[in-house]
């Protein structure tokens, strides 16, 4: 993407700027959509209608909320650590947004074609932890602090099973680049990693059950990483009011909100790339059929967002169905179940891929 724009414009700074702005626009638009979707999903699950007044079925509601939030007074309590308090939302948002730099939305739309894409995503996501801890500590509020402590413990713990599953996929595909992983699973849906990857043979069929186990593990741990129910204890509103962002108001609070939804898409996208072919279409491309090559990247973008939003929808579905776990039970799930299973899965996939 950058190279293409650089050749077109001939100015590195402008090209880089455009490359950065496009994913940001996509994510902000997606966040608006996702917040609306969450309200509608929850409403319809609960025998309600949700927002109905602003636009068709309330689709303008999030925009109205954003305008309201921008107009709100930016309240900063007296006893907060002002510098950290103001940096924290920016840091959280940056960490989440930077992850999108390496995620391929389509074969032509990648912020940065880094070779170590998945490694970069996992590393940069860790910035979020620092931001959360800053927010919790600087708020000078016991609820915030408890929320931040819980959140950090949770995210750091659940990074391990995520990383183990990612490692097994890296072992299988032999690349760290998310774009290459997506390219490998090309053409039809039986080439997706969840169904054993692109090569036919004994290994493919042996792999399928372990792929499904890996998928379940990474899906559960990504739920925990983005603080969604049943792992939403950092912001458990019935216990800790709002967790680490209790003291925030106005647009700073809005940044945490947008970050949450952006994170949901990021992890869903990673899961889609690792197991469900990323931006690849499940049944070939329309553009190939009618011979219009430029249509293919757009189709790919559609498929990537479709897969991502499907997983986001499942996250919402779970949120509005399940109660939440307790902090010690959460750690039990991670350390006693997910990590051992992920390790065994890693070893088995390693052996199979040697076959």
């Amino acid at each position, binding site marked *: 993407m950058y190279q293409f724009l650089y050749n077109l414009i001939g100015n590195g700074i402008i090209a880089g700027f455009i490359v950065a702005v496009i994913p940001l626009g996509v994510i902000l638009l997606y966040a608006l959509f996702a917040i609306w979707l969450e309200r509608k999903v*929850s409403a319809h699950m*609960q*025998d309600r209608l949700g927002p109905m007044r602003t636009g068709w079925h309330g689709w303008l509601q999030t925009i109205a909320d954003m305008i309201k939030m921008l107009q709100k007074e930016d309240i900063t309590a007296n006893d907060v650590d002002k510098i950290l308090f103001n940096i924290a939302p920016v840091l959280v948002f940056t960490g989440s947004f930077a992850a999108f730099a390496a995620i391929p939305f389509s074969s032509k739309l990648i912020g940065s074609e880094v070779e170590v894409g998945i490694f970069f995503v996992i590393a940069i996501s860790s910035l979020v932890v620092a931001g959360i801890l800053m927010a919790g500590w600087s708020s000078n509020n016991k609820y915030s602090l*408890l929320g931040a402590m819980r959140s950090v413990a949770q995210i750091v713990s659940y990074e391990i099973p995520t990383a183990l599953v990612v490692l097994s996929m890296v072992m299988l595909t032999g690349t760290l680049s998310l774009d290459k992983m997506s390219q490998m699973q090309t053409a039809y849906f039986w080439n997706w990693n969840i169904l054993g990857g692109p090569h036919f043979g004994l290994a493919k069929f042996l792999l399928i059950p372990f792929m499904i186990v890996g998928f379940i593990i990474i899906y559960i741990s990504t739920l925990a990483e983005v603080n969604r129910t049943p792992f*939403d204890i950092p912001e458990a509103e*019935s*216990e800790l009011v709002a967790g680490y962002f209790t003291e925030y108001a106005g647009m700073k609070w809005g940044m945490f909100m947008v970050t949450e939804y952006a994170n949901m898409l990021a992890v869903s996208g990673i899961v889609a790339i690792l197991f469900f072919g990323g931006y690849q279409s499940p049944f070939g491309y329309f553009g190939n059929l009618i011979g219009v090559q430029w249509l293919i990247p757009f189709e790919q973008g559609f498929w990537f967002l479709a897969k991502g939003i499907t997983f986001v929808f499942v996250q919402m579905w779970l949120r*509005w*169905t399940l109660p939440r776990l307790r902090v010690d039970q959460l750690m039990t799930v991670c350390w006693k179940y997910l990590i051992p299973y992920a390790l065994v899965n890693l070893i088995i996939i390693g052996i199979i891929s040697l076959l």
Partner: protein
Amino acid sequence: MQLKTDTMILNMGPQHPSTHGVLRLELELDGELILNVKPHIGYLHRCFEKHAEVMQYNQIIPYTDRMDYLSSMGNNFGYVITVEKLLGIQVPERVEYIRVIMAELQRIASHLVALGTNGLDIGAFTPFLFLFRDREKILSLFEMTCGARLLYNYMWVGGLSHDIHPDFQRLTKEFINYFRPTIKELNNLLSFNQIFIERTANVGVLPLDTAISYGVTGPSLRGSGAAFDVRREDPYSVYNRFEYDIPVGQGIAGTVGDCWDRYYVRVLEMEQSLRIIEQAIDQIPEGNVQSAIPKRIKPPKGMVYGRVENPRGELGYFIISDGNTNPFRVKVRGPSFVNLEVLGELCKGHLVADVIAILGSIDIVLGEVDR
């Protein structure tokens, strides 16, 4: 190396999403572990008992509505049967049957809120709204009968404020048919949800002897295994004419007397209430519901204690009369107030998240705690 650590005091409430009103809990924490809980009450104190001393007997009824505002019918019921005991009047059969039906409908409505908020505190938002949807149907029945949806002022000394609507019996039967399956739905969605069981089973275990020594009553006591129910122990109104069971906690998910048992006892009680309503609804005799209402309430000197089984436990009224038109003293034994006392005992050694689950399972209404 031993690090010196300090305990942290956390004020939970009075403005907190899940203290069920304006309860303030002073938690002494070691990390997230609870060392001590001190409930602070009184934010909703409205001097009910003092007010009652300057009111005429029938003027007190609207005040009783506002104590346990989730079970106004039950509060009315307790008050009027106590005053009737003092006056020594007999109310018509029709009144008795309608009162029982209303009290049982109210019990279901109240338990629906209790179960819903208990789930909500643990993070299950959807069951809460499902249960409120069902409660809405009961409130419509009440609204049809007396025009009010929350504070009814329906039962009067010696009678009722309104007779039931001609459609009431049919609609109540429809409600029973509708509601039976939704209890199953609730069990599928929440009661036997593995995460819910993890959160509530073996948490906040209330041993029977502790429960009795604190004077805990209602579902919280029955959850610990004692089949104590005022409707059975000290039958009032026409309760001895109906067949119903008294569900007790059996420790299906964990230990007897844990949060899950207290929760599940309420689910089972809703079914028993349906049974009572089913039996009563067809037996309502004809008659006038206001024929026995005394023109002027001026009881003889004396004192009386009357009690009913409210959704939260034994609701008792102790009334002293000095022969005037207003009582000399009205003392209320509120089940929420008594049950709340056991909270400190239950929470020790648990985590912050458990306080919420335990508080939800004890099911208090601050309007009654503070009065």
